């Protein structure tokens, strides 16, 4: 009896607590307030012209939300999707991963951009650019109506124009050795003084010496809206490079004030189509339309609402449950085990889209390690890989068998060129191995294939292992290592004894030029040259292509380089060109970009249809 009454008491208290607390909960629910923003806009589309600069005087314009009773009831047009992982940063200087790049693209403008269809470099902040006669000085003329904007609570605060000084500050901060930005090495090959500054040992330098190095970088603001870059040598791909996040203007005052935390909501100052409203770390991001962006009237989607979900199959379930509007970057496309079902499903199959992704999956041979130092052995192993069967039976994402390293979509690529690369040919494979002195695989020492731990890589490796057994009669030993250990093993300066004979690797485009592939990965001095491909002829070709300005000549140089790489030397066996596999609800009109730098501001939602479909 005593016990029971005590239980009842506890229950009663719990119930009361629950009622009280849930009451608090509903009272705290934020109300949706539609902002009507009045901005006096001078829409003068200046496209290919430099602009007379009128210095703006007033800097702080506070745009207050005027609650409109009619609009208050309507929910803003919201895009629901997921991130596959938390973006490690939103700082353009520090960004190195695709998730961060995707978000940075929504919030920060670059001098140049890519056309979603043609992948040509098009103006963004820069309206036009000129190149000096010798091809080493690039002058970018910027538009004058881009603004720095901060979102404080619900208040959109304007913090002045985006100027050439912000561009120069951005690149200098990226290069600054005290910033220690992972991508700081990218401009060092092209920009004057960048290498000296970025790779400086700060412990050995005085403040003045460091300042002198900073001043030596070939990035200068000629006036408020003109920025000039001086290059070490002509580089026709430079305008493509300026679309990179590391070249984007950064807000100095904010960064100076808040340090590393400047990218947190409430502090972050941006200039692109969307503003960061919430960033629940590990949990979700919420972006809202920037009403002060110069093309804001073309932006239909007002809210981007994206939780972080680490599991692809959970993402798929959310898509099928109508909780998200698309399944794909920056979240998850349909997982491999679901692909057959998706293709067979009458509804899902119509929502499926397979598009190229600018990445290549390859097997590298360690060219300095016997017997892989024999090009005939390498050729035999490459000929023996049946890429199409691998794609049809295992990958199922309409990937394309790769004949070259640089993938289609990149300037200078030779994807699909019948004269480049070795494709599946079992007869030739056996013959070549016999020519190398190992008929029917006899006499070949044990060959190891190493991959980093991952179910997907393991399946591919096992399939190819079986092909080598079948075609060449060679038993290949499979080894796996955890990613960081794996990279340590493969590092160009690690000893060859520790390395496998063959390994798997991938490469994705930073910018759309073969320089980012052939020179950045396979030049003999590249830190990513895991294959130990040291070919002076190849080096000379890619160096020549760097400085050549005639596109036709450049393309031919890259073709010659690919032929050396794949046909003559066969330093690697490219396996396939990636695809991105997406599911999109019919009410969402989505334009995707093979670089995963989607322009969400161009997307539209049939809002009534979405409301009907999701029952919201």
């Amino acid at each position: 009896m005593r016990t029971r009454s005590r239980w009842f008491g506890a229950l009663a208290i719990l119930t009361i607590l629950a009622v009280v607390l849930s009451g608090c909960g509903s009272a705290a629910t934020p109300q949706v307030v539609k902002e009507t923003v009045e901005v006096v806009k001078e829409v003068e589309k200046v496209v290919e012209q430099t602009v007379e600069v009128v210095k703006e005087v007033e800097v702080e314009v506070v745009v207050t939300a005027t609650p409109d009773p009619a609009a208050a009831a309507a929910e803003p047009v919201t895009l629901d999707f997921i991130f596959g992982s938390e973006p490690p940063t939103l700082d353009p200087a520090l960004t190195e991963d695709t998730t961060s790049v995707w978000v940075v693209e929504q919030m920060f403008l670059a001098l140049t951009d890519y056309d979603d269809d043609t992948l040509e470099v098009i103006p963004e902040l820069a309206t036009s650019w000129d190149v000096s006669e010798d091809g080493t000085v690039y002058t970018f003329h910027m538009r004058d109506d881009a603004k720095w904007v901060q979102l404080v609570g619900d208040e959109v605060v304007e913090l002045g124009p985006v100027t050439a000084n912000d561009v120069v500050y951005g690149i200098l901060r990226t290069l600054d050795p005290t910033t220690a930005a992972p991508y700081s090495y990218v401009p060092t090959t092209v920009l004057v003084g960048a290498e000296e500054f970025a790779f400086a040992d700060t412990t050995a330098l005085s403040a003045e010496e460091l300042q002198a190095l900073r001043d030596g970088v070939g990035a200068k603001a000629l006036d408020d809206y003109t920025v000039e870059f001086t290059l070490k040598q002509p580089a026709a791909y430079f305008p493509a490079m300026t679309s990179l996040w590391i070249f984007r203007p950064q807000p100095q005052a904010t960064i100076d004030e808040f340090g590393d935390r400047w990218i947190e909501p409430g502090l972050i100052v941006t200039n692109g189509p969307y503003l960061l409203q919430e960033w629940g770390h590990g949990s979700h991001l919420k972006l809202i339309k920037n009403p002060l962006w110069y093309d804001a009237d073309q932006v239909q989607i007002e809210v981007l609402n994206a939780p972080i979900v680490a599991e692809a199959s959970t993402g798929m379930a959310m898509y099928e449950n109508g909780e998200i509007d698309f399944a794909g970057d920056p979240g998850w496309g349909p997982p491999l085990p679901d692909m057959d079902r998706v293709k067979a499903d009458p509804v899902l199959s119509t929502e499926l889209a397979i598009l190229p992704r600018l990445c290549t999956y390859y097997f590298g041979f360690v060219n300095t390690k016997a017997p892989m130092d024999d090009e005939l052995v390498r050729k035999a192993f490459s000929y023996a890989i049946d890429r199409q069967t691998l794609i049809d039976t295992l990958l199922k994402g309409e990937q394309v068998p790769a004949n070259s390293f640089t993938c289609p979509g990149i300037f200078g690529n030779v994807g699909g060129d019948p004269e480049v690369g070795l494709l599946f040919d079992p007869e030739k494979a056996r013959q070549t191995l016999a020519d190398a002195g190992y008929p029917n695989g006899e006499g070949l020492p044990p060959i190891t294939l190493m991959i980093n731990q991952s179910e997907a890589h393991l399946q591919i490796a096992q399939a190819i292992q079986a092909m080598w057994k079948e075609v060449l009669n060679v038993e290949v030993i499979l080894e796996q290592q955890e990613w960081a250990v794996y990279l340590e093993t493969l590092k160009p300066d690690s000893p060859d004894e520790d390395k496998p004979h063959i390994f798997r690797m991938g490469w994705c485009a930073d910018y759309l030029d073969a320089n980012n592939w052939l020179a950045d990965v396979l030049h003999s001095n590249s830190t990513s040259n895991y294959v130990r491909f040291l070919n002076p002829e190849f080096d000379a070709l890619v160096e020549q292509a760097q400085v050549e300005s005639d596109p036709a000549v450049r393309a031919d140089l890259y073709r010659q380089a690919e032929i050396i790489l794949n046909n003559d030397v066969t330093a690697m066996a490219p396996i396939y060109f990636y695809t991105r596999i997406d599911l999109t609800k019919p009410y969402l009109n989505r334009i995707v970009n093979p670089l995963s730098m989607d322009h969400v501001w161009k997307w539209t939602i049939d809002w009534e249809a979405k409301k009907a479909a999701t029952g919201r």
Partner: protein
Amino acid sequence: MAAYVVRRLFWSIPVLVALLLAVFLLMQAIPGGPFDFAGERSLPEAVIANLERRYGLDKPLHEQFANYLKSIVLEGDLGPSFRQRNRSVNDIIGDSFPISAQLGILAIGLALLIGIPAGIVAALNHNRLPDYVASFLAILGVSIPALVLGPVLYWLFALKLGWLPVALWGAEKPFFLGFLPMPTAKFIRHAILPTVALGTGMSASIARLTRASLLQVIREDYIRTARAKGLRERAVVVRHALKNSLIPVVTVLGPMFAAVVTGTIVIESVFGIPGMGKYFVQGISNRDYPVIMGVTLIYAVILVLSNLLVDITYAWLDPRIRYS
């Protein structure tokens, strides 16, 4: 008792320091450093050197460890995250630990709520149908991994029946007392599936333990005495047998509690819950030394405290156990 608790807490300090030192040295021993790569690519030496200077990794190891301890003791600062510059390890733990704790406590609660009654029913009906049913379910519960159970649950209750959301967590900061969420409908709807997925396995092992232990206790002389003096069967079981048989259950609850409130990566990633579990794995794969140290330290502190609580509970469960 108070003196005992203070002494135990005092002695846990060298244990924690030794643990941190072991983790610190082990981290250094794994090949690959935190800045060797960015995403899929290797970084040049000069960039790695810049990054190492920035985080003080260019200093000798003993100095690094001393600085680390000093900032914990003097400032309560667990250091920066190498991967996320805008967040410190304190931020990471502060954001994710309360959510893991919420899920962990709910799951332990569910596990006890199911496990103990199921164990009692099984024991009292030893070798009869309810025992077989309960034992079968318990084996099922122990053997189905959360990785399977989670998707099965959301497939059934979200996709097919449409009753509950597939994933995500329904509570956000700020929390009451730092970790208690508002029990809103949203919170409850989102909490049900992960709680069940995480609690089921634990309830099964609790049921098995309770059953085994109760079966043993019920054969003791003092139970026979209690029955002989004419006590009702219910009083015999609840007051005499159950209380004693809970000692093994409580013993496993300590480590179990520490393990689940610090986050379980499988459940958290299946249900998209922003808990602490993933940092144990991510911290290591990223070689994010301060994150590894920080989450390990939290785990260790919780483990020390819950084991202390277990020992105190012993004294209450078994009057023969006394601490002085």
